[in-house]
Structures are given as C-alpha cells and as structure tokens.
C-alpha cells in the first residue's frame, strides 16, 4: 500500500512549483503511521504467493493467516493513539501531507479492519462449505487488498491518493462479487456493480480535474484554502467540480440514485462479501465524502449541504420503502432486505454530514456519522453472521426460513432479535436508539428540522420490517426443526458482534464520544 501512496505522492507534488532541491527529495517515511494498511496489503500478497505452495488440505491455513493479518493490523492502531502523525509531507511544508493518522483516520481504520476481520471469519466457514468451488488464494488476496485500500482511504489527504485508495478498495470487490465460477447471477451482479462503479469513478475523476484546474493543488487543506480565491471566470468550473467529485463517493455509500446495484450485488455475492460491502464499502464512501466536504470544501457548504440533505432524505426513504416491499417468501429475501435496509441506513449516515454544512461545529456533526457507523457496523455484521448461519442449512435464505429460529437455536435468535432492534433503534437495542438520537440531534442542531421529520417517519417505516422479522424468530417452527452445530468461526463472529452490541448498549459513551471531541 505504501507503494501506492508513494506513487500518488509525486503526482500530487508535481502540482507545486519545483522549489525542492535534489537534496531533500528523499523523504523520510513514518512506517509506524502507515503500518495498518501496509500490513494488510503485505499479508494479502503473502497469501497469494503462499497459495501456490500450500497443499489442497492446508488451504484453510490461508484463511487463518488472513484473519491474523487483519487482527495484527487492527492491533497496530494502538501505538498510534498517542497523537496525530503525518507522513508523505510536502517537502518544505510539513503541514501539507498526503497521509495523516489522526483520530478520524484511526477510528475509520478500526471500523474497516474490524469489519474486514468479521467478514473474514464468516468467509472461513463459507469457503469451507463451498468445498473447493471458490479459489481460496485469490479470494483472500482480493479481500485483503480491498481492505487495505479501504484502510488507506480515511488517511489520505490529497485527491489523488483518495481516488487511488477508492479504486484499490473497489476493484477487488468487483472480482469478489463475481467470484463464484459458473454462477450467472454472480457474474451478472459483478458486471452491474463494475459498470456503475466505474462510471461513477470516471465522473468523480473529472470533478477532481476541474477542482485541480481551478485551484492548482490536490492537497485537501490547500484546496480548502485556495478555492475561496478562485478567479471569477473559473467559478462555475470549481462548482461543477465539487458536485461531480461528490457523485463518485455518493455511489460508494449507495446513496439514491446510485443505489440500484445494491440488492442484486448483495444477493449475487457470497454472503460474507455482502456483509463486507454493507459495512466497509459504506465506510469507504462516507469517509471519502467527509474528507471532501468537511476538509477540502468547507467554503462550498452552500453547494454540498442542500445536495447531501436531499440525498439523505431520498436515500433513507427509497431504502426503507424498498425493504418494506420485500416479500418474505421470495428466495434470498433475507439478504435482499438487509441490502435495502443498508441503503436506508446509508441515508441516516448522510444526515450529519449534510448537517455539518449548516452547523458551527462541523466536526461534532461528522462525529455523529462516525458514531452511527460504528454502531451500524457491529450490529449489521452481526445480523449478516446470523444470516450466514441460517444460510448454511436453508440455502434460499428466505425470511420465512427464520421462522422458529428460537426453537432450534435460541442464542442466534436472541442475538438476531437484538441486532434487528438495534438497527430499528428501539430498546433493548439501546445503542441503536442513542446512535439515532445523535443523528437526530445533529440535524436539529443544524436547523434541518424537515430532514429530522423525514427521518422520524423513516424510523417508523423501518421498525415495521425489522420487527416483522423479529417476531418471526419466535413463532412456532414449521415442521421438524433440525438442530445443527454452529461452526467455530461463525460463533466467534456472533460472540464478537454480540458482546460489542451489548457493551455499547451499556456504555454508549464508547462510540458516542466521537460526537464530542475533535476528529481531525
């Protein structure tokens, strides 16, 4: 990953007048700061190479190496906690850097690595169940590369690195979605995902080039500074650039109208990959959006503020109505419902970013998004873990297949009920409730009353389908329930997410503190 960042570096600095002399062209790199994404990328390469030398019986080893790599990368965040670090700085100006490991970066990296870790745990079982029909080495390599890109993204502070990170996170994801050989639905989903994503990236690249043309820099802090003094003639160009840049990231968050790929992609992809996309894919999108809006373009708040507010309202409404329309008896309806609900949740995530445009303290608002995302990541991955568990015996994964889950597996049923109520934001899902409260509070604080009301209605709509699913879990089962052993990795994922959800419900301050402290 460091190589990618380093490649982006000269690209970015070439925009500067060449003041640097040959002597200080050699940069010192803070390896510790860039360790988390680097470790993931390196482990990914190791796994890819090792795949060639490991025998058929030992393939499972690759999975555990990947899991360990992700865990190690997450642990490497710990030494970074003591303060902000930056590296790949502009020669001669230490304040302008391409890679910064500040609080925001660390939180999002934790989210991304944690999410990837849980997805990896689910993948271990999924690959075992697939019984050699999925290429293991490639699978792990793709997953880790995508995670590395996603971990790089929140740290990048220039537009070039940002786009490179975005692509590193997305390109392997296309391949992962279409990884089932000979599965038409899978490859169709991958193609859909790929085409729409590439279009969005192209649009966003064009936007970046406009911004670059009008400001002459790619560094976010410098863009923020210079875009206020843009020549009057270039004003329209800069504005167009702002809007186009946002489009690419809105796509990643699956904001309406860039959401249509989500349900088919989630259903077509292997379930752990759908879980990964629903959490890490979103994290990539909204952290990019935050960087571009709040860090790079605060002076254009009057352009992106209303746009994001409208986008948020549309996204949550379309997502929730889509989820509401799911028929419980249709094949894959559980995954489809989670997909649509993730679109709805993306709408809630956008609300505080939109509010940041109107608020005096943008960082506080953005903190609400971060807090909500952490809650969402834990409980949504938990819900996917239960879905993966049920999907082992009921391959169609219909919502009706969850009927009577309590009778066969009370632990999983209670957890799923808890996760769903967290997503709905009702007690006993206390953390879900307070995460929603922070989002509401950001909107009310910013004076976006109408958006808060739209969200209120959406919360009620969402409750309907979440609770409907929850009730089904406790119904009397149809037919003879078949108990089956829960594989260890899935248990681990369930326990991890469950403990996280419960701990957060007891002490919501753990995630909500990001709404109270400076992130950048």
């Amino acid at each position: 990953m460091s190589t990618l960042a380093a490649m982006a570096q000269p690209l970015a600095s070439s925009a500067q007048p060449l003041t640097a002399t040959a002597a200080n062209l050699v940069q010192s790199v803070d390896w510790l700061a860039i360790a988390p994404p680097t470790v993931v990328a390196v482990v990914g390469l190791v796994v890819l190479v090792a795949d060639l030398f490991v025998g058929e019986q030992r393939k499972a080893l690759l999975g555990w190496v990947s899991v360990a790599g992700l865990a190690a990368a997450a642990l490497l965040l710990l030494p970074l906690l003591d303060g902000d670090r930056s590296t790949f700085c502009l020669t001669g100006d230490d304040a302008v850097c391409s890679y910064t490991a500040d609080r925001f970066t660390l939180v999002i990296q934790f989210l991304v690595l944690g999410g990837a870790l849980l997805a990896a745990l689910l993948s271990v079982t999924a690959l075992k169940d697939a019984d050699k029909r999925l290429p293991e080495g490639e699978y792990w390599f793709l997953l880790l590369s995508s995670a590395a890109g996603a971990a790089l993204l929140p740290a990048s502070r220039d537009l070039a690195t940002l786009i490179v990170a975005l692509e590193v996170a997305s390109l392997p994801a296309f391949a992962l979605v279409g990884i089932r050989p000979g599965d038409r639905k899978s490859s169709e989903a991958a193609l859909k995902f790929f085409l729409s994503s590439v279009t969005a990236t192209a649009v966003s690249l064009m936007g970046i080039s406009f911004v670059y043309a009008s400001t002459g820099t790619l560094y976010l802090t410098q863009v923020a500074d210079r875009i206020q003094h843009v020549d009057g003639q270039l004003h329209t160009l800069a504005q167009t650039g702002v809007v186009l840049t946002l489009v690419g990231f809105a796509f990643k968050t699956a904001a309406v109208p860039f959401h249509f790929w989500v349900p088919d992609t989630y259903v077509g992809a292997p379930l752990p990959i759908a879980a990964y996309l629903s959490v890490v894919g979103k994290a990539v999108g909204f952290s990019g959006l935050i960087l571009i809006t709040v860090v790079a373009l605060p002076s254009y708040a009057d352009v992106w503020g209303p746009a994001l507010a409208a986008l948020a309202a549309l996204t949550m409404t379309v997502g929730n109505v889509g989820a509401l329309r799911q028929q419980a008896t249709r094949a894959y309806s559980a995954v489809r419902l989670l997909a649509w609900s993730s679109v709805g949740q993306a709408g809630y995530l956008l609300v505080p970013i939109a509010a940041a445009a109107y608020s005096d303290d943008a960082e506080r608002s953005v903190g609400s998004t971060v807090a909500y995302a952490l809650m969402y990541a834990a409980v949504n991955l938990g819900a996917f873990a239960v879905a993966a568990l049920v999907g082992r015996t009921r391959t169609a994964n219909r919502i009706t297949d969850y009927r009577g889950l309590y009778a066969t597996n009370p632990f999983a049923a209670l957890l799923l009920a808890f996760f769903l109520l967290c997503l709905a934001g009702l007690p006993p899902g206390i953390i879900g409730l307070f995460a929603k409260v922070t989002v509401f509070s950001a909107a009310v604080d910013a004076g976006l009353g109408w958006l808060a009301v739209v969200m209120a209605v959406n919360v009620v709509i969402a409750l309907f389908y979440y609770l409907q699913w929850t009730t089904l879990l406790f119904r009397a089962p149809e037919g003879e329930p078949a108990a089956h052993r829960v594989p260890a990795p899935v248990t681990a994922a369930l326990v991890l997410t469950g403990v996280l959800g419960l701990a957060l419900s007891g002490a919501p301050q753990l995630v909500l503190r990001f709404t109270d402290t400076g992130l950048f």
Partner: protein
Amino acid sequence: MIDINESVMQFLLAFVVVGPLLGAVTALLPAPPGLKGKSPEQAVLRHGVTVTGVILIAAIVLALGFDHDHPSKMQATTDISWIPALDVRIHLGIDGISLPLLVLTALLTFLCALYSYFKMPSGPTPKAFVALLLVLESGTLATFAVLDLLLFFLAFETVLIPMYFLIARWGGADRQAAAWRFILYTLLGSVVMLLGLLLIGIKAGTFDMVALATDNGRSLTASVQVIAVLAIGTGLAVKTPMWPLHSWLPDAHTAAPTVGSVLLAGVLLKMGTYGFVRILLPIAPEGFRDFAPYLAALAVVGIIYGSLACLALAKQGAKGDLKRLIAYSSVGHMGFVLLGIATMTPTGVNGALFANIAHGLITGLLFFLVGALKDRTGTTDLDTLAEETGAALYGKAPRLGGLLAFAAVASLGLPGLAGFWGEMLALFGAFKPADDLSRPAFLTFMAIGAFGTLLTAAYMLVVVRRVCMGAVPQDAPRLADVHTYEFAAWTPLVALTVVAGLWPKALLGLTDPAVQQLLAGGNR
C-alpha cells in the same frame, strides 16, 4: 412517615427501576435447583410474582420513607453521568407527583403477575410472558423515576416492544393488526417527541429536567417553546390518548389479554399525562400557554366523543364489545385529565393527577372484571351476553355482579369514590383557569365536560343494567363466582378506590405542594 437513611432511599429507587430488568433476564434462564416448582411453567410464573412482589414492597417502603412534609422536594435522588457526549445523566428522583404513580405501577404489575399465576392467558410459553411483563414494569417505573429528558425518552420507548409482544402473542382476535397499530402509532408519536426533546435540550444546553424546570423556560425563546410543545405534545397525546389521536387504543384494548389491558389502561396511558405535567408545564410554560385552549378543546371533544361512542356500543343490537367500551371510556376519562392540565392552575393539575390515579385503579379493576367475565362466558360481546333481557350477573354470580356494578359507578364518578374528585377538580380548574387563558372559552369547556359526566353516567348505568340485571332463566347454568385469587387481585383496587374517595387528602397532600412549585417554577 418513617425515617429512612437517604442512601437507602437512593438504593431503593434504583432497585425499583433496575430490579424488574434483572428479574426479566433471570426469568429466561432455567430455574435453579430448589426453585423448580411443580413444572417449569409454574416456576417461572412464581418467579414473576416474587419479583413484582419485592418491587412492590420496595415501592411501599419508598413511599413510607418519603418525607411527606416536603413533597415538592426531589427525594431519593441519584445523579451520575452516563453518556457525557450527549449530556445524558442517570438522574433519578421522586416527588409528590411521581410517587403515587410509581406505587400504582408497582401495585398493578404485582396484581397482574398474581392474576396470571392462577390464570395464565392462552398463548406461547409463560417464560417469555413473565420476562416481557417485567421489562414493561421496568420501563414504566423508569418513566416516572427519571429526571433526564433523553432517559425519559429511553424509558418511554422501552415499553413498546414488550407491549407489542404481549398483545401480538397472548391477545385475542385480530391481535396482529391491533399490536401493529399500537406500536406504529406510538412510535411515530414518540419519535416526534424526541425531536422536541432534542430541541429543548440543545437550545437550553441541558437535558436535566430539574434544571430545566427551575429555569421555567426562561432560556428558551417563544418560538422554540411553541415548536417544542407541539412536537412533545403530539407524542404525549398519542400515548394519553387525546382525540383524534386515540384510534389505536380501542383495538389494542380489545385484542390485548386481560393483563395487557389492565397495564395499558392503568399504567401506560399515565405516561403520556405524566409527561405533560412533568415536562411541558414547567419547562415550556409559554409555549404550553399558547396551546392550552386547543388542548382543552380537544380534551372535551374526547370526553364527549368517548361517551357517545360508549353509548352507541352499549345500545342493544350494536354488537358492542365490553372491552372496547371500556377503552372508549378511557378516552373520555383521559379527556378530563387533559382538561385539568390545560387549565394550568394548581386545582386543575391536581385534579388531573388525582384522576390519573383513580382511572388507573378503576379501569384496571374494570378490565380485570371483564376479563373474568370473558373467562366464564367466553365472550365480551354485550349482545351475546345480555341476549334479550340482560346477562343477570346478579343472579348467576352475585359477587362478580356486585363488583362490576361497584367499578361502574366508581367509573362514572360517584361522590365518595375515587373517580369523583379528579373530575370535579378538573372541572373546577376550568371554571377559573390561569390568568392569561381565556375564561369564557374554559367556561364553555367546563360546561361541555360537565355534560360529559352525565353521558358517562348514562352509558355506565346501561352497562350495569344489561350485564348485571335481568331475569335468570330456570335452566341457566350458574357461573363460577369470584375465586379466591381473584379476590386477592381485586381487593386492593376496591379498597384503594374507596380510600381515595373518602380521604382524597392522602393523595392531594402529596401532589399539591409539588404542583404549586412546578407551576411557579422556582427551585427544588
């Protein structure tokens, strides 16, 4: 009355709120050896009785230890930080307004647990039933004990899921639709309420109810107050329920099991009116003043509407359901409560709080009785029950008939019973509303409300005539009269109805100083 150490009081209050939650968790676990009882079902139902009993005792001790000389002072207060980021504090405390409601809740839940021990509603396992009942108790008790706006919201929301399941899993016909309507309506209301609470918290810089009440709305601009009152008021009005937001109530009551109806009417509805008194009156007085006449108008419409609906249901051939009838009568009774609050006078608000408690006792008793009637005859349909001449309960089951008649006359507000004082004081308050409210308007409301009491008397007497009286056919099977466990569950309600009717000062002495202070602002 008795002197109890302050830290013991603190512990008791915290225990009353948290205890049922712990009980709910333990109810889901297998019973420990020695407590297995005759069967797992019996063991868990007994567990429910034990836990609610202990909570009731704690609540009574709390009431005894309460300093009755200073009911306006917040007592047994705990105040610790929970979520600094949102400025949410675990702030608990009771004063003369919340104490009676707290005891009422603990009492009714205990009686419900006791009743279910002997007469478990048909449905899935009692395990889940007991756990849900306890979560419900915790949520309602917390609503009356917390002094932080966001915590209040949390407690307010906690009751939704248990009540939903109680109706949807243990209810009667059409229970699914009724449960959905209940939860979606009240959730929409409470989310809107959350927006208002957030607005107040953000503009005033604190979510602490005591601090906000002391401030008495001085740090909130008039427009903020108006918006906040509109939002919070809507949420509370759905819960109360106020006409025209009441339409979830009759269905929910009709479908709910007996125990669910008792708690719904006896406790859950009070959460709405309590919110009006505790939050809106002291925190946003200016905004509330603007809406008070409208609130009063809707309240009296509710009184008349509820009574007329009941009259229509009580008519012969109307296929009226007794439970639905009592639900509509609740709309009317809660109209009196809202009218009292809307007057913004100590008299009116005291009346409202009194009527709150009285309605909890009397309607709780009525739902118990109708539930018992349904168990015996298999129906609550008035026409089926009464046939041509009347159900003749006096002849078939004299004690049951007598109790039903007692509850009915208590409900219509017979002087000397609990129902009388609240409604009289509420009307009295409307006779002389707060200074800056339009007196002619309130006089009109008072007149309409007084007419409503006549209508209430009319339909209640019709019900008594059709259910209790009538000729007993020779070959009619005798119905089982009141069982011992039913006596045990109902006697406290009957006794308290009489006590509150004959000695209203016991209650008013508690609420009045607290209400005076609440209306005057000032610190506690």
